[in-house]
């Protein structure tokens, strides 16, 4: 069982961190280079961070970047660790981690559905949640749901009872 500070020390020693932040009690977030993410996750997995809660993606449209956040948890340390990395928004391609966690396959597919990010090595990138989607991936910030809705559906015009 490590404390937050011990963990930060350990990570600083063994990993090439871009930044590390203690968000709050039992919550730490670290940032890694693209190339070092898989090896970093591998390292963490072998250091009791075996629980991959989910993979989040954030569209920082102003910085022209996508941020991928891998939420890990260690049952030993009882620390929730967010591992982040940023990728170019135009390239929108990253490597899969399905060899570390098989379940990541579906998380990645989900992200592909909603952000249009492809994951090299994960070959099944069919639509998972959406069906016949041919617009900008909906969770990107430049997809405007109101405009899309106005175009595709229409509102009920109430009359009478005035």
């Amino acid at each position, binding site marked *: 069982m490590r404390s937050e500070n011990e963990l930060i020390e350990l990570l600083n020693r063994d990993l090439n961190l871009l930044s590390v932040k203690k968000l709050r009690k039992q919550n730490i977030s670290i940032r890694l280079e693209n190339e070092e993410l898989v090896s970093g996750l591998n390292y963490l997995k072998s250091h009791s961070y075996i629980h991959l809660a989910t993979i989040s993606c954030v569209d920082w449209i102003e910085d022209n970047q996508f941020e991928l956040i891998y939420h890990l948890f260690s049952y030993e340390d009882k620390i929730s660790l967010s591992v982040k990395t940023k990728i170019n928004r135009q390239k929108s391609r990253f490597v899969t981690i399905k060899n570390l966690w098989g379940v990541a396959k579906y998380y990645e597919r989900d992200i592909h559905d909603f952000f249009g990010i492809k994951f090299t090595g994960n070959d099944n990138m069919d639509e998972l949640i959406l*069906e*016949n989607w041919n617009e900008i991936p909906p969770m990107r910030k430049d997809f405007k*749901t109101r405009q899309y*809705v106005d175009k*595709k*559906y*229409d*509102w*009920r015009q109430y009359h009478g009872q005035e």
Partner: protein
Amino acid sequence: MNNKYESNKWQEVINWVQKRSLFMLHYCTGCGAIELPPTMTSRYDMSRFGIGPAATPRQADILLITGYLSTKTLRRVIYTYEQMQDPKFVMGFGSCTINGGMYWDSYNTIKQLDKYIPVDLYIAGCMPRPEAILEGFLKLKEKIETGNADGYKKYNKEYETYKKNQEKVLGEVKRRQ
């Protein structure tokens, strides 16, 4: 198909029978479905009115649209509706079926159910309480008895309009009988 119901008296008898026995398709299309179990089971027990669940669309009389319909579900609902045998009735649960409800600005849900399939009754609520659902069933029975629950006739008559609306949101819809 309506030719054989020419005689009014005969039609009245048919309506009377149909109203007393309704099979409801057990299809949870949205969150309103969570109030169906209480309606079906001991606390409210809709079987008192001769309404029971049916496992397949072929056997069902009522299609309940329990709230929002994503486009993906809409496709299945259209299949299901077309598989059901006349006479068939559709009830829309809650806000989402009327004008989009909570998901009025969602890119993936339809806003007005009656553009895609005819709806015989709407129940207000988000979601409607079991009591309201039961009252809805009673009202539907009234409508059936007076012969006003004719959404399915409308569907046959205005099939092309419905088809156009369906295809506007879904693209091509594979149809099967």
